[in-house]
Structure formats: structure tokens, C-alpha cells
């Protein structure tokens, strides 16, 4: 089976493809959020130690995972764009950054909400929250650098280099922050042996999937606007229905 993948690496063809793909990610995302949160809030039992407050993990944990994962994906796309000079990869990196930053912010916000009843303070300088804060700064750095360079090609390449340096640094930062303070409770998801109720696990994995679908849908929507903006002088853009109407 010979699919010409390179055909879809041209922004003009990917624009149409992305438009068709968006509903396939957006609708499952909404459904999965509804199901996951229903299980999380109504089916899952009350935690023996943490009471009702623990339920915020159904948003907090997926957001944290996605924020870190998206940074690596973003750096990967940026590196592809830098090495092979493919414009679409760089556009994808730019499109992912705001979503990743939003997840990092949600993770911090929900972490604070969780912290108040658990530790009695809105903000605790523990390893994971601090790493998440630094990750948010790394996202801000990427977005700010990209925004302050006028020439799109230079912006893509400079931001890509920053993302690569950042992704090499993320484990070092995480390790150093952990070294600095290990106050956080141990990992809650264990794959061998369950310390969590089955319904809790289900809810968490479903919301994680929902976040993932959401991130893909958002990235596709954003990459379509970036393509339009960058290619506005090309003929195919002026022939589009939505541009002419």
C-alpha cells in the first residue's frame, strides 16, 4: 500500500485534511470528558484519606501529563522542522505551544486547589508543582521568542533550537528540583498492583484520553489558521470558499 505521506506535508493539502480530521478528535473529546467526569464525580468512591477533595485529580493528573508530553511532542516537531526544513512541522510546533502552556497552567491551578485542603496552603514548594511552574516558563519562553521575531522562518528555527535545548533541560530540571525537595506524596498511578479503586483508574484514563483528543483538535484548528496566515499570498488560499465568502 503506497500512501504518499509527503503529499500531506505540504501546507496546502494538509489544510484540507486537517479540516476533515477536526471533528474526529473534537467530538470524542467532548464525549470522553462527559463520561470521564461522570465516573469521576458520581461513580468513584470517596477516598478514605483525602475525602471528596481528591476528585480534582481527574483533571489535575491528565493536565500535568499532557503538559509535559506536549512539550516533548512540540520539541520533536520543532526539531523535524529545523533539520528537514519542513514548514508544516514548525507550524505544528507553534500550534501546540499554547495548548501545552494551558495544560501547564491548569495543572498549577488545580494543584493549588488540591493543596489548600490537603496541605493547608495554596502553594507548596514541592518538586512536581515547582517543575510544572518551570515548564510553564519554558512554554512562555518559546511563545515569546517566536512572537518577537518578525521573519517567520527565523522565528521557527530560533524557537525550535530553544525547544530542543529546553527538552534536554527538562529532565535535569526535574531531577534537580526533586533533589531540592521531595515533599510530594509518591506516584498515585501504579501499574503493578492497585492502590486505587477501579472506577478511579477508569475515570482518570478516560479524562486523559479526552485531554489528548482535545489537544489534537486544538492543534489542528490552530495550525489551519497559521497555514492561512503564512500562505495568504498564495493562489490556493485566495481560491478557498471560506476566504472568499
Amino acid at each position, binding site marked *: 500500500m503506497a500512501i504518499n505521506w509527503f503529499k500531506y506535508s505540504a501546507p496546502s493539502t494538509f489544510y484540507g485534511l486537517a479540516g476533515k480530521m477536526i471533528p474526529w478528535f473534537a467530538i470524542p473529546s467532548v464525549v470522553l470528558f462527559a463520561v470521564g467526569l461522570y465516573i469521576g464525580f458520581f461513580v468513584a468512591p470517596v477516598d478514605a484519606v483525602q475525602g471528596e477533595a481528591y476528585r480534582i485529580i481527574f483533571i489535575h493528573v491528565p493536565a500535568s501529563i499532557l503538559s509535559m508530553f506536549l512539550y516533548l511532542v512540540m520539541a520533536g516537531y520543532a526539531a523535524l522542522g529545523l533539520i528537514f526544513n519542513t514548514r508544516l512541522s514548525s507550524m505544528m510546533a507553534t500550534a501546540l505551544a499554547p495548548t501545552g502552556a494551558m495544560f501547564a497552567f491548569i495543572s498549577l491551578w488545580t494543584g493549588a486547589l488540591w493543596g489548600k485542603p490537603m496541605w493547608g496552603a495554596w502553594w507548596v514548594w514541592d518538586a512536581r508543582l515547582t517543575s510544572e511552574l*518551570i515548564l510553564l*516558563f*519554558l512554554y*512562555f*519562553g518559546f511563545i*515569546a*521568542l517566536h512572537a*518577537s*521575531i518578525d*521573519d517567520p*522562518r*527565523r522565528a521557527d*528555527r*530560533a524557537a525550535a*533550537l*530553544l525547544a530542543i*535545548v*529546553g527538552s*534536554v*533541560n527538562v529532565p*535535569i*530540571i526535574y*531531577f*534537580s*528540583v526533586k*533533589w*531540592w525537595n521531595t515533599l510530594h506524596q509518591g506516584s498515585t498511578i501504579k501499574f503493578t498492583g492497585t492502590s486505587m479503586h477501579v472506577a478511579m483508574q477508569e475515570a482518570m484514563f478516560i479524562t486523559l484520553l479526552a485531554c489528548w483528543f482535545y489537544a489534537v483538535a486544538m492543534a489542528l484548528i490552530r495550525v489551519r489558521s497559521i497555514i492561512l496566515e503564512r500562505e495568504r499570498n498564495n493562489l490556493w488560499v485566495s481560491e478557498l470558499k471560506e476566504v472568499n465568502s
Partner: protein
Amino acid sequence: MNQLSIFKLLNLVIRRDLLLAMRRRADVLTILVFFVLVVSLFPLGVGPEMDMLRKMAAGVLWVAALLASMLSLGRLFSADYLDGTLEQMMLAPQSLSVLVLGKMIAHWFVSGLPLVLMAPVLGLQFDMSVPALLVLMLSLLLGTPILSMLGAIGAALTLGLRGGGVLLSLLVLPLCIPVLIFGSGAVEAVTSGLSVVSNLSLIGALFVLCLVFTPWVTAQALRISME
């Protein structure tokens, strides 16, 4: 390229940058005065209780060193960029990474080393003990070159941009956090009677890592910025 010419080139670049710095001594002094000023502001802000100051000393000195070195990074490449020297450097028949390494070393001599030498005097303001002062100097001696090296990447990426200074800090400061943690951690370790070996060897590892990768990354960043 033979080894001799690498060292000759390094030597040339370092000598050139130091000569330029000597002809513009005010710049070097400004950074040092900024460092002293920031450190001296802390007791005024938090109060003069010696116990608390002793506890804070390492962190305060390290943060001030971090900020002071950010201040000097803007000039690392921008002067050469504006007068066209950077273009000539990129056309040098030797590797650009070596040239960049030379500039990093010169930058450290001008903006890092003075901080290392000044730190013990400021440490006395905070009533630090002699062993703590020695460890502080050692950690700064290993750590400030890392700040110059990581900072060079940011300086190269923000070359010629509006508001480059603030952006530079936003890009570089998060990357410097491990150095800050291990550096001030070493001093805390010695004051609480623990071994400083692990902290210092971690900074040493970061130093080697930066020495290997940052000149090349900075050279790539310069090529991107020159387009």
C-alpha cells in the same frame, strides 16, 4: 584543522574581547556594582536578624550572581552584530563553535570571575562561616561559567530583537535553575555539616555537559539569527 590553530584562534578571540573590555571598563564595574547592590538590598528588605541572614546568604548571593550575569549577556554578541564583526567571524575558516567558546571564556573573565572574587566579601555581610565562604566561592567558580555558556545561547537567539534583554532573561533563567539549586545547596550542605561532594560534582557534571554542547548550539543559534 590542526590543534595548534584551534588554540591560536581561542587565544586571539579571548585576547580581543578582554582588550575591548579593558577599553570599556565602566561596563565591567557596572555589573559588579549591581551585584553588590542587589545583595545589600536583602537585609534591608527582610530585617537584620543574623540567624535568618546566615540561612539566606547562599541563596541570596547565588540569585544575585544569576541576575548580574543576565545583565551582561545582552552585550555578548550584540556589539559585534551591530558593527559587522560577527559576519566576519562566521566567515572565519575555522569552526564557529571554537570562536564562540572563546567569546564565552572572555565573557566569564569579565562578568563571572569578578563576582566569584567579590562573593566572600559580601558573604561576610551575612556572617557566613569560613568553610561556607570557601564552598560558596568554589560553587560560584564552577557555576558562573555555566551561566555564561547557557546565557550565550539565549544571547544568540535574541540577537537584534526588540526588547531582547527581558526576553533573554525569560529564556535563560529557567535553564539556570539546576545550577542555582546545586550551587546554593552545596553551601547549605556545608553549614549543616553534610558532605558537599555530591552537590559540587553535580555542578561539575553540568559544567562538562555545557562545555561540550553549548558552543555548538550557540553557533547554530548565531547562524539562524544572522539570516
